[in-house]
């Protein structure tokens, strides 16, 4: 979308005598946004122009089509990324993490506050960045699980 498409002057002229209502739309500067400049094939003879123009309402409007474009694309991107990550968590992750399948049900069974933090602490003491990210992810997953249990299953909050 080119820049000149981002402004418009829209004049709405209601029915007048035998002329039906009309919408005029032109790309002019704010200064020129008035009936005389925008209503181009003037439907009335010269002496009626004033009266006709008084009825018309002209509005100068601006937009940024780039903002719209960027917003929509970012939005779609984020939705897509989230969907992919969700699929990853649902399908791929369990396959990778088969090594410690026993902690999962245990945490599902009891969620006493004292029992939870141990893996977090272990993770946060990891040395490489990767391990830390890993740890953070684990912790986050625990948190979400907890939240899901609170909100969706036990209806303790937010119901």
């Amino acid at each position: 979308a080119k820049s000149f498409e981002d402004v418009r002057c829209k004049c709405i002229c209601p029915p007048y005598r035998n002329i039906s209502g009309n919408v005029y739309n032109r790309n002019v500067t704010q200064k020129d946004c008035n009936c005389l400049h925008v209503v181009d094939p003037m439907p009335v003879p010269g002496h009626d122009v004033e009266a006709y123009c008084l009825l018309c309402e002209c509005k100068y409007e601006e937009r940024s089509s780039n903002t719209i474009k960027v917003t929509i694309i970012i939005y779609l991107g984020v939705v897509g990324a989230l969907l992919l990550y969700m699929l990853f968590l649902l399908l791929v992750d369990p396959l990778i993490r088969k090594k410690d399948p026993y902690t999962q049900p245990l945490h599902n069974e009891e969620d006493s506050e004292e029992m939870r933090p141990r893996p977090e602490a272990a993770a946060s003491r990891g040395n490489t960045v990767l391990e830390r990210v890993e740890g953070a992810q684990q912790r986050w997953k625990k948190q979400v699980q907890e939240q899901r249990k609170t909100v969706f299953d036990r209806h303790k909050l937010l119901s």
Partner: protein
Amino acid sequence: MFRVLRTTRGGGMETDFERLHPRDSAEEDDDDEMVDIAGATLDFSSTDDVPPLGAGGLDDYFGSSSSSRAGVTGVTGMNGSAPKLVDPLDDPLPGVGTYEDFNTIDWVREKSRDRDRHREITKKSRQSTLALLRSVSDAFSGWLLMLLVGLMAGALAGGIDIAAHWLTDLKEGVCLVGFWFNHEHCCWTSNETTFQERDRCPQWQTWAQLISGQSQGAFAYIINYLMYLFWALIFSLLAVTLVRAFAPYACGSGIPEIKTILSGFIIRGYLGKWTLITKTITLVLAVSSGLSLGKEGPLVHVACCCANILCHLFTKYRKNEAKRREVLSAAAAVGVSVAFGAPIGGVLFSLEEVSYYFPLKTLWRSFFAALVAAFTLRSINPFGNSRLVLFYVEFHAPWHLVELAPFILLGIFGGLWGALFIRANIAWCRRRKTTRLGHYPVLEVLVVTAVTALIAFPNSYTRMSGAELISELFNDCSLLDSSQLCGYKQPSMNISDTGAGNSLADRPAGAGLYTALWQLALALIFKMSITVITFGMKVPSGLFIPSMAVGPSRAGCWVGWCSPGADCITPGLYAMVGAAACLGGVTRMTVSLVVIMFELTGGLEYIVPLMAATMTSKWVADAFGREGIYEAHIRLNGYPFLEAKEEFEHSSLAVDVMRPRRSDPPLAVLTQDSMTLGEVEALVESTHYSGFPVVVSQESQRLVGFVFRRDLLISIDNARKRQEGVVSASLVVFTEHAPAQAPEAPPFTVTDHTAMDITVDIFRKLGLRQCLVTHNGRLLGIITKKDILKHMAQIANRDPDSILFN
């Protein structure tokens, strides 16, 4: 009130308190997981770096290594010169002075901690230029934070507006010149629009046109219908799945929880980064799916998330729960400001409806933030008309004093509807909470979406989004309008009217108007019923727009049916008053609502009708139940929220509410200097109280102070680990803190014969978590916030066990 654990005998012992630590350090002060990675170095080793200070040997070392800004352990008595050397800005003993999830903060402690910190910075600022700079930047960090919150929330709101608009129109068709344009922007430069059908242009293709090539006819209608249904289902499925997968806390409106959080409750992760992302994304999806919900309430939640995340950038706010809540109060104002384009209304909303502690400083800052946000949103210009909201109107029609009667009638209707809605919605939510219905949240959302879409599509007033409907109804029919509702017969103009402008006078209603009114009536009934079950589903859902839509629909019908002949009636004004009345009935907002509507219209003239309607609505609704929808949801969930608006009426005394009751065992207390570590541990282990009073001796029961369970555990554990010679037989000594380390909140006391209304007032105004009850200087018992809430529930004949949290 501080304590020092002084060891009297040697010997180390393994304790089982160690497991407390990692969690505490990780959760020290962030409501979110974001800092953990970066802050993982902030573990216990840091306290080891503090060199032994003073000359007191073991005792003083212990004292100073655990003396901290968080203010849990101090040094003995008045000779507090040694601990003064400990820099209070250093890392405190981690976890001390923090709170567990689902607990209530102690406002006094937090505020005095902040003042302490501020005092320290001021003191230092006299010493060096760098410290002076730091103090200046600290003073301005509040304003900077507000600016950032305003910018971020404004930008997010703009994005949400654009995306929601586009997705909503995607249900209908697609733009050929650029898929990212919504219907209106697609036809932005088109000259093919006509006066009657202003939106139609060749660039915009409905699904029927794309698929079958036809734009009219039964087949095209069916295709459009199916596509509408399809997209609605897709959107709502996506919304509920994403919420479930990434941030279950993102569902609902968020305002009841934010109210509770602002009153001092802690819900970790509720205002976190993931909640923000998920809520922003799914809000757009939920709104676009055509469900009867609005984006205004969740925008408040979104703004609060922004504020909470940005708080992490500033130490002042990251580490202090009370200060952070000040920012969150301002963020609530920002949310409403961008939702309605009403900065003043937003501030008043925050003041009247959401906030608990709202000092004047916050008033000014929230106003600033609200303005910045509104300004940002305007510069994004999401609707392309320089307005912040879709349904902005500019009225200039006058109203007559006689019209106050219909306005008050609208108010009565609004109040009735509000009371009815609250009852129905709460009953439904309770059912969802307790029965099997709640086990299928995803299915529920899908079914409701399907029903909504199926019923909504045939009726043009329900097919459009709530905001559009309101916009249409608010519209003051002028000659320029082509809306069906303005389907009066067009009069012939004569030249004498030019000066006076366009007038509606003497235009008889056309046939189209009656069709429109029928549709509107059906839309009203449909909206009223579907909103009841929609609000509370597991998608982000605001209530403002649906409530507002009910009002004008009613008003529109009413105006349309009853007085098509009356000249001077402005349907738009009635719609607006109706919207205010319904919203007022549901939320029980008053001043803020009037101001929001005033800012929407920009005309001071309509304040009186709006106020008449809002006031009537509130009174009528209050007659059926004192609670607004948010308070009702707070009560449904059992949050520990002490309503500031209601007066405590009952004449009970503190002694009636305090624990222990007469039949209970005596209060678990610690003595000042006669208990061993083992005894203390046993006491702590055997009880589940969140704090213990400290008395001079078991006999005298003279109160010395109060110790939080969490702080006690952490300190004991720290002593066991760090210090040689701490055994179970070591004597534990609790001492008054030294003057230099004043941050601990004092134990508040009331006498046993204090009336409960005064006690409740003290709790509310000072933000207490607990209060001790004394009689002639002797400790009698303790009252916690939960005790008060339970007592209030009991008085109101409700189940006291519905209060779930501390």
